[in-house]
């Protein structure tokens, strides 16, 4: 809390005005609209709407397509988070052993952060192209027939790889920082006590890295849930047969393309609830990270 403050009463509101105006017009008002709309049913022409209480929600949770989308989202998010974190942790552990070359490797590994998710999707879409792609060609030699436009599992694998690829650099940076924060004296003491590199990794390094890992788990989950929209849209568009139709994509398809306003609004509200929970978890955790 600041002691020295300025006494003006009007000025702070002027300073806050642009931020608050944008927040109200483009965030709070539309969110409130979505909330209100989720209790209404509009007729086909959008002329008349009736209040129907929680019917949109009950219909949503009885809809097999929606439940399928929830499952798809869970599989997708968990896979993306685990894959991106596992690869990044392996690389970070290796980089932590480097004294002179760590900086060079970091430079070579961080730039994919700057690649747009849509482009990342497109690049992997190209590599996995069933007709001319390199990976299907290699898989063909071991007898696997790759065609993600027909096979739902393969389609899912493709979007997971594309989404995780882009996130490796972010996780790598945070893991490296987490590893550097572990005092060398701990590992040295363990080494003197006769613990080999493997033992030190599992008994000292990984436990002390737990806060970083948990933080990254939340960030990666948020990324996989919301920021991967472009990956899906630029590649599979939710298909084939809804196999990659994650929740944020379904909101867009049902609302913007299908014009099913009530259902789309109810889906929006469900997603907002998910973001709120994740944000609270993230902030609670950051408060606790300090005492670690």
């Amino acid at each position, binding site marked *: 809390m600041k002691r020295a403050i300025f006494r003006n009463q009007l000025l702070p509101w002027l300073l806050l005005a642009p931020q*608050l105006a944008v927040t109200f017009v483009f965030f709070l008002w539309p969110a409130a609209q979505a909330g209100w709309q989720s209790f209404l049913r509009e007729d086909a022409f959008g002329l008349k709407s009736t209040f129907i209480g929680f019917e949109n929600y009950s219909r949503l949770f009885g809809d097999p397509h929606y439940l399928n989308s929830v499952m798809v989202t869970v599989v997708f998010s968990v896979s993306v988070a685990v894959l991106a974190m596992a690869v990044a942790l392996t690389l970070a552990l*290796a980089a932590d052993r480097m004294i002179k070359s760590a900086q060079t490797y970091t430079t070579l590994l961080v730039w994919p952060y700057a690649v747009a998710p849509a482009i990342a999707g497109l690049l992997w879409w*190209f590599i996995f192209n069933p007709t001319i792609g390199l990976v299907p060609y290699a898989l063909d030699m071991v007898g696997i027939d790759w065609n993600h436009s027909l096979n739902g599992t393969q389609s899912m694998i493709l979007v997971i790889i594309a989404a995780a690829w882009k996130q490796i650099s972010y996780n790598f940076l945070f893991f490296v920082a987490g590893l550097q924060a572990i005092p060398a004296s701990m590992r040295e003491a363990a080494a003197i006590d006769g613990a080999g590199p493997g033992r030190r990794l599992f008994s000292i390094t990984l436990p002390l890295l737990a806060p970083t890992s948990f933080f990254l788990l939340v960030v990666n989950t948020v990324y996989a849930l919301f920021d991967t929209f472009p990956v899906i849209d630029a590649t599979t568009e939710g298909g084939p047969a809804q196999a990659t139709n994650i929740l944020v994509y379904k909101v867009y398809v049902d609302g913007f393309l299908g014009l099913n306003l009530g259902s789309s609004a109810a889906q929006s509200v469900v997603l907002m609830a998910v973001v709120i929970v994740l944000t609270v978890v993230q902030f609670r955790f950051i408060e606790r990270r300090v005492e670690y």
Partner: protein
Amino acid sequence: MVEHRPFLNFLSHAVLVLGVLIVAFPVWIAIVASTHPAETFQTGRIPLWFGDAALHNYGVMLGDGLSNMGAPPLAGMLFNSLVMALVIAGGKIAISITSAFAIVYFRFPFRMLAFWCIFITLMLPVEVRILPTFKVVADLGMLNSYAGLTIPLIASATATFLFRQVFMTIPDELAEAARIDGAGPMKFLRDILIPLSRTNIAALFVILFIYGWNQYLWPLLITTDEGYYTIVAGIKRMAEAVDANPIWNYVMAASVLAMLPPVVVVVAMQKLFVKGLVETEK
């Protein structure tokens, strides 16, 4: 490193080299593909080494575009993306600095309410409120305009928190001294606070530039006029035609051009980039 283990050192290098190769592989393929003529992709496989059509491909994409595929010349799209990235980054920083200044250095009624209103934007990503936000922008007549591309994305809780954090660490004595010397609040902001947070501003700018450049869903929704397409969103319209007509060379040339500016920014300003990334997550 605790002890000398030649094998582990070797293994670490091997892992890192493999990691770098995997990470770079898709981009390598894209760059190589963008240098081949279209015929390469009609039969056979993706090439692994450069072809001789680079100048032609990039020339066509930058200058003429592919009008039959809904792709205007990329030069215009790159310009739109640049405008969008710069306005979003600059705008977010400007309104977040003034907001943080108001919240830290003034006492006024409903101060905490204002703070929470800003905080709540963290929980409302555009993906979950697409339709109503689109409707607001349409009602305001902001479709197909630079204002529509940028202003709705310009609120930033993260940036406001960051500057609040920075201002809290600035000693109170500075504000007292400024007041005794007769400086008003705006002079204090301009001549003391902003110069003191210069590196934070630069670091944040790098992150926000990338954020703005890589926007996808928003420009895709609100631009139907070719003159306002941004490159990242525009590529999708190109890629849709690729199944019928495999002109991957042009699509990959466009992809390379779309990722080049943000990648250059990250590599050239790596220190600021890392600082920005770590700070915005606090």
